[in-house]
């Protein structure tokens, strides 16, 4: 197979905003132009809505670390499966625990899984993609077949296998989701490296005596960052969805720790008695994912207007 991607494989975004030596970084632009950039971000409706929702999610998670209306683990047998009320704004679960407090605490779990899973996928994927794109040949071919194989393992399959060998846990769900992200980060990095490794500024640096490590770290890698940042933003909500699904199946967060997916699992047996129990955690997932998706779309448009649909 040629070193290039199959033309119709899902194409990673071409790196945008490639900086060659001598050009100015966005930080190096004039003050007026910097303002124009910032203003463009604020005027972008998708980005702004996504940013506000994401900010609300982060604020909720941060607040839950110091304050929740009730203790999310405090049970009350007399107050089980209540609908929304003054005492419990979003109602209670089958143990009388406050749903609002549990949803707030669940936000921390979601963010944690998102950050760690994307970190695992990005960290290892970028490393493999770098080696693959820079050195090419059999190494590239081998890594790409490995990525094809990993693509056959959605997070759910890896989690099933790992849960059978170890025990179902939050850590396992993070690793399983992270592994599922490897191919997209590896292919994206590889495509950027293939594009940049023969560009004039790289050849010039090589001619001036730069070694492989310097070429990769100082000249090529910085140029691959914009699409990687966009991909990380797009992957974050996917990780949150995957964690919710794995927790729903009992392969992720374990009781009594609050997780939105686990709350949905527990609500299923009580759909007829307190439907709000299923509505609120699901809404938390949907609004969070919607916000992060809008933020990712907006960021992609701002960083690479060519890709906006």
């Amino acid at each position, binding site marked *: *197979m*040629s070193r290039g991607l*199959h*033309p*119709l*494989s*899902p194409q990673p975004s071409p790196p945008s905003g490639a900086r060659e030596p001598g050009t100015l970084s966005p930080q190096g632009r004039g003050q007026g132009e910097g303002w124009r950039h910032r203003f463009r971000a604020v005027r972008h409706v998708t980005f702004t809505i996504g940013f506000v929702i994401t900010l609300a999610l982060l604020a909720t998670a941060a607040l839950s670390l110091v304050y929740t209306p009730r203790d999310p683990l405090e049970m009350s047998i007399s107050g089980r499966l209540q609908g929304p009320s003054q005492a419990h704004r979003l109602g209670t679960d089958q143990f009388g625990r406050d749903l609002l407090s549990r949803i707030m605490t669940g936000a921390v779990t979601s963010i944690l899984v998102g950050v760690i899973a994307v970190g695992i996928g990005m960290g290892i994927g970028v490393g493999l993609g770098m080696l693959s794109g820079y050195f090419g040949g059999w190494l590239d071919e081998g890594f790409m*077949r*490995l990525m*094809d*194989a*990993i*693509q*056959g*393992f*959605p997070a*759910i*399959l*890896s989690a*099933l*296998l*790992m*849960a*059978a*060998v*170890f025990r*179902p846990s939050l850590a396992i769900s993070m690793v399983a989701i992270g592994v599922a992200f490897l191919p997209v980060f590896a292919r994206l990095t590889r495509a950027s490296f293939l594009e940049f490794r023969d560009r004039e500024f790289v050849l010039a640096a090589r001619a001036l005596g730069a070694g492989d490590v310097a070429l990769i770290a100082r000249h090529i890698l910085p140029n691959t960052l914009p699409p990687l940042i966009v991909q990380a933003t797009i992957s974050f*909500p996917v990780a949150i*969805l995957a964690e*919710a*699904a794995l927790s*729903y*199946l*009992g*392969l992720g967060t374990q009781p009594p720790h609050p997780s939105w*997916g686990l709350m*949905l699992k527990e*609500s*299923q047996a009580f*759909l*007829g008695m307190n*439907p709000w129990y*299923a*509505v609120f955690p*699901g809404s938390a*997932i*949907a*609004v969070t*994912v*919607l916000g992060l*998706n*809008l933020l990712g779309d907006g960021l992609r448009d701002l960083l690479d207007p060519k890709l906006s*649909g």
Partner: protein
Amino acid sequence: MRRYLLRRVAALLATLFFVSVLVFIVVHVLPGDPALIIIGPEGSPEAAARLREAMGLDRPLPVQYADWVGHALRGDLGRSIQYDVPVASLVLSRLQVTLPLTLLAGGFMVAAAVPLGVFAATRHRRLPDYVTMALSQLGVAVPGFWAGLLLILLFSVRLGWVQSGGFDGWGQGVWPAVKSLLLPAVALGFFQFAVLARTTRSAVLEVLREEYVKTARAKGVGETSVLFRHTLGNAMIPILTVAGIQLGQLMAGSIILESVFYLPGLGRLALGAISARDLPVVQGVVLFVASMIVMINVAVDILYGVLDPRIRYE
């Protein structure tokens, strides 16, 4: 075409080899002893040692791998500890739920996404376009299993039209079986529809901007003919790419929806096997589903070559 096919098949074999290695590594090489997993913490070290010997786990890893793959290639995925039957027969029997569910969800996905995507593209930057895009954003954000719960809440708990889950098998007739799969298929397809609708919209928009479409219009060809004869065929490759990838995702997604609707498919088989420490069943299900996903991806690759001769000569 033959060379293209051979290249794709060679890539498929290499990928399947890596799939089998990954499954083997997780079960046999990562910390954790399969014999101890099966026998549980209450088993004595002597019993674990006997089981290890009986399962051939005391042999070198490459020998164990070759033995396991050799059997898998002949359709022997081992024997279930919980049910004491061959894993392959369990997988095949549960496939009678997972496969129709996946295909039904795929059907819903394509039936909803492609017309909607085309409709949005032909009304670019007008209300129908914005509504479609908003719907697709919502579709991506709503998890399939939550959509499933909401459908149960509406159609089963509130309206009482359908059962909240369960599957009586195909013995009672096709319609009762399909009826049990309808809600899960809708819930599963809705989530995946969003991505395909957006892809269809972008692909059709791109082709509509091509010179030959402008030429066709200039020559007086009607809009219907422009859309169906000149545009859709050329927009099909990205649509097929995403639909193919989505089909694999649907198969994985059906594992989750089976739990929501209590369907006895591959997913519930694997989840039950985890609780029962039935390692051969989990290993067999994962190997089977991962191989299916990889094969679907390669089949889509081959289809490109059939649809677009330029790709065969790359």
